[in-house]
């Protein structure tokens, strides 16, 4: 592997940590002598600055609707995405080491600590760990700062709400009752809206939904049926049966 690639790999490993990144840039001798890497670094710095300046956008209504549809109709993109997430399991090497320790321990009357402390610390470092979500950390922090206030809020929330007397409810209802003409106009407007919607979406036109996001799967037996470019890549990866 050449020095450029080595430096870039190291930089990318530290891309999310500004201090480590800067330390590498100061200490790396290759960078000071390689204009290509310096140019590459400038473009990465630009990207990092651009990403950090990006505004957070809220989810659009269309996306929310799409997710709702996915969640209610069969296997969804979201489900597939969730299934594709990597499982948090112990590394195979750790599993092997633990299995060896257990096998060795079974023959001994008492469990001995790991013979090699460094090996033990490596095993601990190898464990995946989950961090507390920031929102949970914030909520717990707030509660610890004002415990009395939060206990009071929790108790108030659990109290059974008292119902208003019937006479009071009747007076409030009379106060907000709309005149008959206004109520009729409201019904007429709603009916007109339903009629217009029905005319616009009259059944029987059989127009494919342009928003449709899922494609119908068709399996082809003969590889000759796919595009020649796809065939070339498929033959290379699949071993050209």
């Amino acid at each position, binding site marked *: 592997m050449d020095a450029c690639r080595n430096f870039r790999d190291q930089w990318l490993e530290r891309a999310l940590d500004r201090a480590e990144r800067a330390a590498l840039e100061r200490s790396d001798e290759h960078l000071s002598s390689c204009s290509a890497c310096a140019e590459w670094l400038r473009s990465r710095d630009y990207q990092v600055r651009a990403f950090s300046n990006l505004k957070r956008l809220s989810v659009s209504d269309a996306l929310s609707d799409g997710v709702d549809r996915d969640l209610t109709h069969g296997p969804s993109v979201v489900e597939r995405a969730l299934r594709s997430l990597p499982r948090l399991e112990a590394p195979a090497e750790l599993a092997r080491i633990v299995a060896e320790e257990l096998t060795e321990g079974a023959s001994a009357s008492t469990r001995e600590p790991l013979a090699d402390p460094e090996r033990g610390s490596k095993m601990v470092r190898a464990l995946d760990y989950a961090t507390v979500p920031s929102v949970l950390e914030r909520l717990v922090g707030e509660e610890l700062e004002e415990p009395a206030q939060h206990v009071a809020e929790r108790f108030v929330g659990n109290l059974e709400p008292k119902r208003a007397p019937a006479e009071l409810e009747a007076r409030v209802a009379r106060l907000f009752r709309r005149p008959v003409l206004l109520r009729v106009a409201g019904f007429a407007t709603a009916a007109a809206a339903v009629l217009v919607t029905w005319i616009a979406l009259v059944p029987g036109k059989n127009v494919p939904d342009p928003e449709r996001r899922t494609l119908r799967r068709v399996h082809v037996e003969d590889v000759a049926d796919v595009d020649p470019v796809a065939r070339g890549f498929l033959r290379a990866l699949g*071993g050209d*049966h």
Partner: protein
Amino acid sequence: MRAFLATACLALGLGSCSDSGNSLGKSVDPGTQEFRQPPAGGFSPTPGDSTGVGAIIPAEEVRHGGERLVEVFDEGLLSLSYREQILTDGEGAFSLRPLEALTSVGPEWESIQRSQQGFLFRYRDFAVRDRWQFTQNHLLIDLGNEVVVAGRPCARYRVERTVGESRTYELSVDVETGQTLAYEELDQDQRLVARMTYETYDAEPDLTTAIWFEPTLQETSLLDTEPLRSQTGYPVPLPRILPAGYTLFEVATLQVSNREWIKLTFTDGNDPLFFLYQPTQETVQSAGPLGISAKPDPEREPNIYLSRMGAAGAAQATLADGLYIAVGKVSEDDLVSLIETAFP
């Protein structure tokens, strides 16, 4: 600009995602994370070293010639076997000629092999294509023993894929050059998928009479310092969900018989995964916003065609804005998802 940023975000974001979900990245001792480089006089594998990824060098980077036996298996049974001759100068020029088929093949097999030697040379065999991504998704175990392949001493390694679908490789790596001289690929049930073995090896081949492969595809890498849209002239749909462990490796254009494709190559460090997009003339000319042009054609049946060959699969769909193709050693769901999540 947004398109390119999305591409870069995809690469960086997914890279960082895999960091949090992958066990190998955290199991590497920070003190040994500097990968071993092969010294000028060759390298000696150290038993127990699980970070010697840098010591495995792609065949295309080592000047050599030789004959190789290639075997492909279907559900553990041998389905195709042939011998081929490889010659490369280690600097990009190569030829890969089929010598003889050892199993029954069609009459056009040899001509197909010759025409597709570019694909086969670059993508068929085991290789560490992205060192960082490889360590994120694989465990490299030095088996601590040596074998002789084509007369050359080789160290034995096992590679286990630790993210997504399980896959294992058994490697014999030349202790002098770091080149993989033999490998076996096994599926999640530990059944053989493919095997390649050098039968002869020439470290000083005569290159004066070599007839190098001339690519029929004109491939041009796109710059990662310029917006993708400004380089293509039209919007390029980008997959939003990738299979576990994959990240963007390269973006390029392909010229095939006057047809231009955008080729996105993703990788898990070893296997490549391709997303190809060929815009229609209307898309190229209108170059409208992606949200308008890239939707399923309401006049056409929105089918996606799926084909499988060994461990790899391909998916192909024609939408209003162009032709979408995904090819890789991933599940059918992953291939379909790659395409479906590309259009808005």
